[in-house]
């Protein structure tokens, strides 16, 4: 499960201990989406023990301004102290860049079971295309409106899939499916939802609104 992180022990001692510390840090639940762990979210980058009893953890934010990062750091520190670490340092690193592609398959499954449509895979591969084509992507014909009636004009504008995975690649992005009934017939209500990383959508089949983890 701890695929994105690596275990480093400069002194080469007790790799088993580092492995269990890594597991412990990775098992901390996300403060805003407690159904997934930090390891499943892919934000735990590295756990090391530079000197005996001192554990150093590298954490990467999902979004640059994600306010949960401080809560994550505090929770990791507490978990590691309870696990026997005398001193814990949590550092925030920006590279390698976190992407929604770093969310593990188990993490995606848990998000969907929790009612949050998981991000579509391939965000990392398509991101440079979105950026590179910024001025011209609008020169292509308007994207096909997603099936279903026009959204209420009182809500946010537009119904297209937005700038996420697939935008600007010339291929139709995979539809966002309703996490409740599985229908692909869903519309965007607002680009920004309960947190910066989610958009608000509505299923046209079962009429339920739901959060969608936006691809970055």
């Amino acid at each position: 499960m701890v695929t994105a992180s690596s275990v480093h022990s400069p002194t080469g001692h007790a790799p088993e201990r580092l492995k269990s510390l890594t597991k412990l840090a990775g098992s901390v639940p996300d403060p805003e989406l407690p159904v997934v762990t930090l390891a499943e979210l892919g934000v735990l980058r590295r756990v090391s023990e530079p000197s005996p009893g001192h554990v150093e953890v590298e954490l990467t934010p999902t979004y640059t301004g994600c306010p949960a990062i401080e809560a994550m750091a505090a929770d990791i520190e507490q978990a590691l102290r309870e696990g026997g670490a005398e001193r814990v340092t949590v550092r925030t690193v920006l590279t390698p860049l976190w992407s929604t592609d770093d969310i593990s398959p188990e993490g995606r499954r848990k998000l969907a079971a929790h009612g949050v449509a998981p991000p579509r895979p391939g965000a990392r591969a398509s991101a440079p295309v979105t950026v590179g084509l910024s001025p011209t992507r609008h020169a292509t014909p308007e994207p096909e409106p997603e099936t279903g009636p026009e959204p209420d004009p009182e809500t946010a504008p537009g119904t297209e899939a937005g700038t996420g995975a697939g935008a600007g690649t010339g291929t139709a992005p995979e539809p966002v499916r309703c996490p409740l009934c599985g229908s692909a017939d869903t519309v965007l209500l607002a680009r920004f939802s309960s947190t910066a990383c989610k958009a608000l959508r509505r299923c046209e089949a079962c009429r339920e609104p739901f959060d969608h983890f936006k691809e970055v």
Partner: protein
Amino acid sequence: MTATAPPALATLPLADDALVLSHRLGEWAGHAPVLEEEMALANIALDLLGQARALYAGLRDELGTEDEIAYLREERTFLNCQLVEQPNGDFAHTIVRQLFFSTYQQPLYAQLAPKLPLAEKAVSETAYHRDHAEQWTVRLGDGTEESHARMQRAANALWRFTGELFQPVEGLDLRWQELEGEWAASITEVFGRAGLDLPEGQRSGAWTAGAGRQGLHTEPFGPMIAEMQHLHRSHPGATW
């Protein structure tokens, strides 16, 4: 670290842009026209605040802690462009300011991405800001007579603040002319779809903005930072 990383101080204008616009957008909290927009503007503000914090953190040796940089500097030492300090005005005004700025910031970060981890991180986030502003520009510009008139008025009023964006920032090795060309092409295209006229006024020269990067600001900026810094200055060292 990347060998070609820009000198830390060269990123101060970008950090100040992000902080000041974040504060302006935060002023919408409790006042936005619909709940979804309240959350969108707050989320965009949060992204910008995150950018500012990451960049300020890199300036610790030069300028001090994040709080000291944000809350204890005087007006003349802020190097943000004058566009971002302009008051929110009506919703059209805010959207046009968002459009002008995000259409500048996102390609700028794209150019900086190989040299600056923060830019690499923020480029995909600012794509959402840009998309948000473009969607609203088209909806309001191509909306009712009233919304169209308000958008056109906002565009005309903010136009003179857009030339400053492309004055090269010392230490940032970017293709500035290319940035400006991309910006103008994109704004022209979005305005076309929105049924808005490109303003006829000047974007550089007399009566246009051009000194924000040198620390000279417009009248609304003083009251804005006075409010922004008030709590920290009144209670030095206070924590939550």
